[in-house]
């Protein structure tokens, strides 16, 4: 009996060990044991929490630690969303600032690609600007990962240092090798708090705008797109709107078609964002108060982007849009009117010079009425030809011109 109990105990132990080995999840470097794919709300909460900690930290060492956590969190969730361990951080540094763009991808056999971007750096928690944008990108990853295959690669990039002047996206564009392979870039920035949800593609209607709008009933096109970059109206047609200064701008300047999603409200007075949403009050709690349906908006927008990218005409539309983009040649847009003005001024100067000569001639020949007393101040002809030494007024016979040349005795 004792032996039987020992055998049973040994059997149970061996079975439990085999079971543990058989059903344990494989451990990866970026997907630690226990990591799970979060839903939108929890993803957003965690991102806001980490951003809040990062921007609230006082010492640099703490900031570095939180930043590392933030990067690892994004990589981990991105890997889980696309189902592959492909997320990577891309370090960049300028003279005064450094950061990490976080990139993941869904690959295909094609060389062409689409880039979906949203910046993850923030002021305070940055719920609207721009945790919600990253959340849309995250949801789009899930959407596209569930598709069978795509005819192009999709790169998802969480940009850093957008608030410091688009540094992360500019660096990313600098590193791109073939702009022509990028079919389009989709930028998501501050999409939740505003009353309306807008998409900007170009300063005129393009096929890409039409395709995106056909996938949504609530999206509103704002056609006056990427124009202002650091206060310089590069494209010549755009209004001076600050919303244009987002991560799509370096891509558009490189000649890549862009679609920018953002929220707000336009009126004759200009673009209105919720003022709270650009400060440390940009919290998830405030966002829920301002727009209670922000989670639905995130879900809807990711569906719109997903449906656009999976549309069978997308590649043709994106290629056609490249040909529809407004010429961003600075000479054409900025200097051509000035050159025309300069030419007109030269022609006018010649006309003015000719008119000046005419006026001068008129003055010298005295054809016109002359008012100045000085002009009349000349010798009287009667006095010149008076030979008797008396004033002509006293000589009654010398008043006629005929008498002037008459020699008197």
């Amino acid at each position, binding site marked *: 009996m004792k032996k039987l109990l020992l055998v049973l105990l040994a059997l149970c132990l061996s079975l439990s060990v085999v079971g543990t080995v058989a059903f344990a999840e494989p451990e990866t470097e970026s997907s630690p044991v226990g990591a799970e794919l979060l839903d939108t709300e929890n993803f957003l909460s965690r991102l806001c929490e980490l951003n809040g900690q990062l921007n609230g930290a006082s010492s640099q060492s703490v900031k570095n630690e939180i930043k590392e956590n933030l990067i690892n969190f994004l990589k981990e969730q991105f890997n889980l969303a696309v189902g592959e361990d492909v997320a990577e951080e891309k370090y960049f540094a300028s003279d005064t600032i450094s950061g990490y763009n976080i990139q993941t991808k869904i690959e295909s056999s094609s060389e062409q690609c689409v880039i979906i971007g949203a910046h993850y750096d923030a002021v305070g928690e940055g719920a609207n600007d721009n945790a919600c944008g990253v959340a849309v990108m995250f949801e789009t990853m899930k959407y596209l990962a569930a598709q069978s295959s795509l005819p192009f690669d999709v790169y998802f990039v969480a940009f850093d240092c957008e608030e410091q002047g688009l540094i992360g996206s500019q660096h990313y564009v600098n590193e791109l090798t073939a702009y022509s392979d990028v079919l389009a870039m989709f930028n998501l920035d501050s999409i939740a708090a505003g009353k309306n949800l807008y998409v900007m593609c170009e300063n005129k209607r393009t096929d890409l705008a039409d395709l995106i709008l056909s996938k949504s009933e609530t999206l509103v096109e704002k056609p*006056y797109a990427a124009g202002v970059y650091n206060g310089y109206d590069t494209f010549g*047609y755009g209004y001076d709107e600050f919303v244009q200064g987002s991560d799509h701008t370096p891509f558009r300047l490189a000649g890549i078609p862009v679609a920018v999603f953002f929220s707000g409200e336009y009126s004759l*007075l200009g673009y209105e964002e919720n003022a*709270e949403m650009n*400060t440390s009050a940009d919290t998830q709690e405030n966002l829920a108060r301002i727009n209670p349906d922000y989670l639905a908006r995130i879900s809807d927008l990711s569906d719109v982007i997903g449906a656009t990218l999976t549309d069978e005409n997308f590649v043709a539309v994106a290629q056609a849009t490249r040909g529809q983009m407004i010429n961003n040649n600075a000479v054409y847009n900025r200097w051509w009117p000035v050159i025309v*003005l300069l030419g007109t*001024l030269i022609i006018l100067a010649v006309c*003015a010079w000719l008119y000046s000569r005419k006026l001068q001639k008129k003055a010298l020949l005295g054809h016109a009425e002359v008012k100045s007393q000085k002009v009349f101040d000349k010798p009287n002809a009667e006095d010149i030809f008076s030979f008797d030494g008396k004033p002509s007024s006293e000589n009654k016979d010398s008043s006629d011109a005929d008498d002037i040349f008459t020699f008197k005795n």
Partner: protein
Amino acid sequence: MFNKLRQNYKLSDVLIRIAFVAAYIFYSWQECLAAANLIPTQVSLSVGATVSVALITALVIGTALMFLVPFVTNLFLNASHLHNVPRAEYALLAHAFCTIYFAVCGALRLINLVTPLLLVWGGVIFPFVVSLGCVIWFYHVTSQLYFNDVTRPFYFRVVAIVYFVCAVLFGVVL
């Protein structure tokens, strides 16, 4: 009405100065509003407060320009040795034509609210065309009032040189 104003110099001066500032506000409100829109990115400001800030900014700049015009006209007359022109009256006329310029340009700028297509071309061409018209009109009026056929060519040359210098400076260089 116009003849009565011509007989009352002080009233004309006051009315033209008021019109000058009003026209400048009408001319520059879009730029002032764009500048004022910067503020909400730093502090929380309502739309009404932003508009007020824009209007006050335009009012202050317009008033400053109003006081600057007589200085500029005096400088112009002194530099060109045109000493036979009544300064105050000449400055009043300058105010009047600047008012016309601001009013017409302000009206043309309203096109930007309808379409942005003329933002750059309009931004260069509109001020040029309107300023050219105003300068020609101003020259015509002042040359008839204060100059004769002998002195008029010199006055024309001075006005033309100043206009072209300003047009190149503000339209091309800046």
